């Protein structure tokens, strides 16, 4: 459910680093929690993300959540396919359901992100709080 090789934010986004760029998506837990996703609002290419700040929204038919940037940087690519097929976030959150690619401004920020194991622990804690 939480593939190796990715870094995870406590706000339930994943980051896959390739050179100085990072691909961003939401985790299995996040999409499962939201239920059937019906709409995604994404930033434009060129927008500046700030770590920890909202960069878009995701809607299921009865809930709205925000995406929070796992790292800061400029958006270089967004997944346009999500506009017509937001359900990709449910069906393939680590593959076709990627959200955007960001040019990582400050690699040091990645140190706060979690490993798959730590993230899984974090999710378990969340479920217990409920």
């Amino acid at each position, binding site marked *: 459910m939480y593939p190796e090789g990715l870094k995870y934010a406590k706000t339930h986004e994943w980051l896959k680093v390739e050179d100085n760029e990072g691909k961003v998506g939401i985790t299995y837990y996040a999409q499962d929690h939201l239920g059937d*996703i*019906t709409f995604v609002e994404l930033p434009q290419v060129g927008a500046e993300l700030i770590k920890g700040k909202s960069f878009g929204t995701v809607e299921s*038919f*009865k809930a709205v959540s925000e995406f929070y940037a796992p790292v800061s940087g400029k958006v270089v690519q967004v997944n346009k396919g999500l506009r017509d097929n937001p359900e990709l976030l449910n069906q393939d959150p680590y593959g076709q359901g990627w959200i955007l690619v960001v040019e990582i401004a400050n690699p040091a920020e990645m140190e706060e992100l979690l490993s798959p194991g730590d993230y899984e622990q974090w999710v378990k804690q969340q479920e217990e709080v409920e």
Partner: protein
Amino acid sequence: MREKLVFEISKKGRVGVSLPRCDVPEEEPERLIPERCLRKDLPLPELSEPEIIRHFTRLSQLNYAVDTGFYPLGSCTMKYNPRVNEEIASLPGLARLHPYQPEELCQGALRLMYELGEYLAQIGGMDAVTLQPAAGAHGELTGMLIIRAYFLSKGQKRHKVIIPDSAHGTNPASAALCGYQAVEVKSDKKGCVDIGELNKLVDDDVAAIMLTNPNTLGLFEGNILEIAAIVHRAGGLLYCDGANLNALLGVARPGDMGFDLLHFNLHKTFSTPHGGGGPGSGPLGVKKALAPFLPVPLVVKQGKRYLLNYNCLLSIGKVRSFYGNFGVLVKAYAYLLSLGSEGLRQVAENAVLNANYLMNRFKDHYHLPYDRICKHEFVLSGARQKKRGIRALDIAKRLIDYGFHPPTIYFPLIVNEALMIEPTETESRQTLDRFADALIKIAGEDVKTLKSAPHHTPVGRLDEAAAAREPNLRWKK
């Protein structure tokens, strides 16, 4: 049973109503109006009268309603809608009035509005009332605008409104609509406003605290006097969302607790029907200092005459056309007169007794996050059931199979798997018992039965995700 849409029933050449012949010269419209302003085609359906009656009657039969069964929707006060109110509201002398007819020819209507305002002020402990808002949220907006105008008149501009995390969504939305920053205050372990937290949040930038009392957990805010003192010390105001006033009728008055503004939901507390989503009516009561800011016109009494007073310099203006949902006001007025002051208190007592009786029956079967005397409603949690994969939604849908309307679910947001139940005073103990039996039985039913519920409705669970992904909001050929 699938009922076709009127557009699918439509057949060219059919008519549903007979209209008078034209008794004035039949000029061609092109002679009276430039042709470019005239429409080429009017694509409305064509049905005969019997088809129309059958269609809409069949549609009505697909609805659950207060008149067909128990409707324990928390926060909605789905009580019985007395028939005499309907009859009175349809009297020609009350229904067939033009809003701009001369004052001397609508004295009865103005008197009714004046007296209803007085009664509501008395019940809420307020000094002045406007009947203009069309619904609860509209009353909130009116209240926020008045609060803003009040501070402006004192040369102050405050920016924050504090709202508990258990509040109705309309509260933060109304505050935001009026330009306020909605600041959330957490609830404490007892389900009430956390006073420590509140103290930290209140400063001289706070315009108001918006509270529902009893709150959406059905609990009375026991610290209400302290809350009022905290906000008043900082120069702020205390707003009461009157959605849950049914619990307090004739027992206690928000005005005496320190609330400065209070909206009433006539379609909840005062028995006017919900109409499948409206019309409602949300009169707003205020304390003396805020009265100059009320919307215009106000109904005033001069000797034996009733007048509409538009001459209010500090008024926020108008929040809708004319004077309010008059037809709804008539029903609430009739209800109040049929209760009288003794009946009023009986409403609250029986509503609260019904809620506590029902709550008590669930204690061993559902998690009760706040186990103390409730007011008119209470909140169960489906947390125990969730452990075996059953969601509040499944429980709700299964109740339909037993002939009941489901309670409000997933609200308030601070209770996991919330099931919010409000029985009202117009239900008998026998009905409450039957409902309790059903909900308790459901707690032990198998997952498959619950997940596939409801089983006997005209349609099964509908694909809401598909509806939102590709909205189909109108019929097309």
